């Protein structure tokens, strides 16, 4: 219990100090020590994906990682999406397609999609569906989540092509 470590976490481009027991998960530190409550807890055993964050660009289950393991990494949470109070294209797309109902799973899906699209910008619908199947949503039936991510991918691809030809 007295065995605590002072760690420094780089989250959303800011560094934060936290005094944590080695057994404390990254999820709990993000939520309770840093107050970043956008990342949610759905199962604490790595299945639901509600806790998905990006660690060095990779979607990771924050409930399966100890905070002390994340010290040298760059962590991104849902709070990093969007800028100056404006929603990001992905967030807007979720709203347009009704990709969220209760919204509890949403931060996890957003971070999953953000990480996935960065690696696979030209993914087709079936590949997106496959990627989305990593997380659980109890409200939507998934179709509109896939729609939202697919539309974002398409829009980003068009924008990238335009930029390339310009």
């Amino acid at each position: 219990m007295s065995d605590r470590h002072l760690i420094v976490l780089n989250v959303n481009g800011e560094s934060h100090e936290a005094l944590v027991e080695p057994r404390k998960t990254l999820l709990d530190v993000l939520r309770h020590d840093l107050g970043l409550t956008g990342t949610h807890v759905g199962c604490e055993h790595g299945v639901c994906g509600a806790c998905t964050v990006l660690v060095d660009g990779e979607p990771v289950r924050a409930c399966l990682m100890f905070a002390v393991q994340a010290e040298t990494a760059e962590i991104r949470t849902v709070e990093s999406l969007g800028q100056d109070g404006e929603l990001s294209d992905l967030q807007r797309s979720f709203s347009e397609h009704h990709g969220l109902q209760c919204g509890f799973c949403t931060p996890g899906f957003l971070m999953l999609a953000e990480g996935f699209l960065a690696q696979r910008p030209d993914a087709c619908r079936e590949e997106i569906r496959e990627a989305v199947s990593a997380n659980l949503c109890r409200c939507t039936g998934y179709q509109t989540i896939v729609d939202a991510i697919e539309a974002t991918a398409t829009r980003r691809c068009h924008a990238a092509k335009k930029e390339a030809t310009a």
Partner: protein
Amino acid sequence: MTPRFDGRNGRWVGASVPRREDPRLLTGRGRFVDDIQLPGMLHAAFVRSTVAHGTITGIDLSATLAVDGVVAAYTASDLDLGDIVALLDRPPEEFSPTAMPILAREKVRFTGEPVALVVARDPYSAEDGVEAAVVDYEPLRAIVSEESAFAEDAPVVHDEAPGNVLVDVSMFDTPGVDAAFEAARAGGGRVVEVVTKSGRQNALPLETRGVVASWDDRDDQLLVQMCTQVPHQVRTAMARSLRVPERTVRVTVPDMGGGFGQKCVVGREEIAVAAAVRRLNRPVKWIEDRREALTAGFLAREQRYRTLAAFDEDGRITALDVDVVCDMGAYSCYPFTAGIEPLMASAEMPSVYQVPEYRVRARAIASNKAPTAPYRGVSRPQYVMAIERVMERAARELGLDPVEIRRRNVITQFPYTGVNAITYDPGTYRESLELAEAAIRDEGWYEIRDRAAADGRHIGIGYCCFSERTGYGSGAFAKRKMAVVPGFDISEIRMDTTGSVVVTSGTMNHGQSHETTLAQIVADRLGLHLDQVKLRQGDTERIAYGWGTFASRSVTIGGSAVSLAAGKLGELLCRIAAHLLETSPDNVRLDGDGGVVQIDDPERRASFEEIADVAYLRSHLLPKDVEPTLTATASFDVPGDGTFSNATHAVVVEADPGTGQIRILRYACVEDCGVVIHPQVVDGQCRGGIAQGIAGALFEEITYAGNGEPSAASFIDYLVPTATEIPDITVTHLETPCSLTENGAKGAGEGGTIGAPAAVLNAINDALRRTGVELDTTPVHPQTVLAALDAEIHQEVSVPS
């Protein structure tokens, strides 16, 4: 036939406007219970029973109290709380009242039942404290099935419920039932018998239950922030259990990550936490973990129907004789009681069909399993599955097409008063059936199916036609003889000096988009921009009483209440405006654009700001008989038997002969929920509901070992479908405006879940038609499908020999 509804020009209702709740939920700024942190907050965890049925012989919490960080630990005798008791006004032979203690006393009745409460400085220490607790039990034989509950020498779960029967009701028994069966047997008709069973499921909101409770000296009040669909019922039950005046309890609900019925009953953990707060005088938080949610949360669905049906030679149903047994688990839920499932099933079993003679016996039994709550659809996914299987079986035996037999039996004249003494308001039962079939036919699925069969593949088409009573009024609940009768809803509307309004509702959003849809209704009624309407819910201080959100009641009842309140405020605005414009009140009307206009001189107008300015800041200008306020309150209760939404689902599946897996190739839903307030939201409710219905049909089940140990304690064992198991679903809207509600809307929350199990099961049976096997139990396990397909292979082999 009503065409696809695309919204109305110049009105908010009917338009898929951006959801008001989205921005905060998309940015991580939603506030769910576990996001709340209070200064000095402690954390609770529960010591839970490790046996399913037994006597507690000793509880030793000394090691718990020695754990670093543990602040307190309590047993039932430490807290001295009143039990939760849900009652029906029915005679003892029909209903056995039982009590649910907050913490188990003397006896435990299911694995996971809370026995003691540990409070610590952080959640990790609270868990350590739970680990250190020592509880001794003298185990009793566990009741884990209908057979074990009814066995001669069965132990009883509750002394008050002999034979483990909580509810036993026989109803209707119309005079011609037996004669109809005899006629069917004697003549060219048919008597079919189907036994359908559905597994025990978890409604599984992704956000588990949780509470943050604290005491406020200044308000002389316990502030209970928790996720519940029914804040007022929690307040009532909690105040009774704590034995305090109800005004000293305030329940508020932050954002809620789903509920689906699991959170529409009163739980015990939150009350135990509240009691700890009173003793410790510090805020306490409890967040249910997934293991608790799966094993000790409210479960649902485990039901068995034996349905006998008589048909004449033309395939018309002539009588129905049904025996229903619902395994309610260890306790009766508040406020609905263990009668919720069997009583709904027995009242509504004839479904969308014209059934002339009807008899039913419905029982709720107690078992040593986690208790149940009404889960999305309540008993309808089960009784619809029963009657839809009956239709398919009869079609097969009479050599009729499954759609044709439904066509011959479905109700087509409305209002229709059934053999069950319920009057059904107008709907599109037959139209939805025709449209769904046409979709499947036009897309060529019948040819695809038949060609596949020629290639040795197993594709099947299944339908489910059903209606769903939405927005039960107090009349419907009173018919059930509940001691606590839900029904009405109250709304208060208040306009400020800028002409914006805040509307309260006793309903409780947890994903259904009330902040958007109820605001659309109000904006239209008053002629306001949507941004000028703010809905507030989930605070027992803001509204005298409310019944929350369940049974697809929010838009029908809550939506009607907000509409009426807005209407009343509109009248008040008109009265003040007429006075200011120096004309008579019947010479003005709302202008649909934030003001009141003089009818005979449209140049003369008073904006809401101008009226509000007078109402609050220059009240000397008000008419003599008008008080200086711009508020209005209204309540609404659905009259009579309420209103029925309806739908037909059509599904195409393929059974994989290698794995026994069922793949859904096509899913079409044609539904009618009256006037559609927000088409995208209704689509979302349909699809999400269907996904949960598919989950019940193919995947999810909590089984129990003979000793009452639950099989699924994590998502490893409880198979929740993901995006690769749930297909894309088309939703087509029919629109029969409801004359019983203010906005013509009917409920849309549960239909998807109701129709899917039967439709999927029928499709599977169609896919297996060459095997001679018919399945009537959900979930359908791949092994069962494989066994059926194997049987066919053996048949084929045995034919030539």
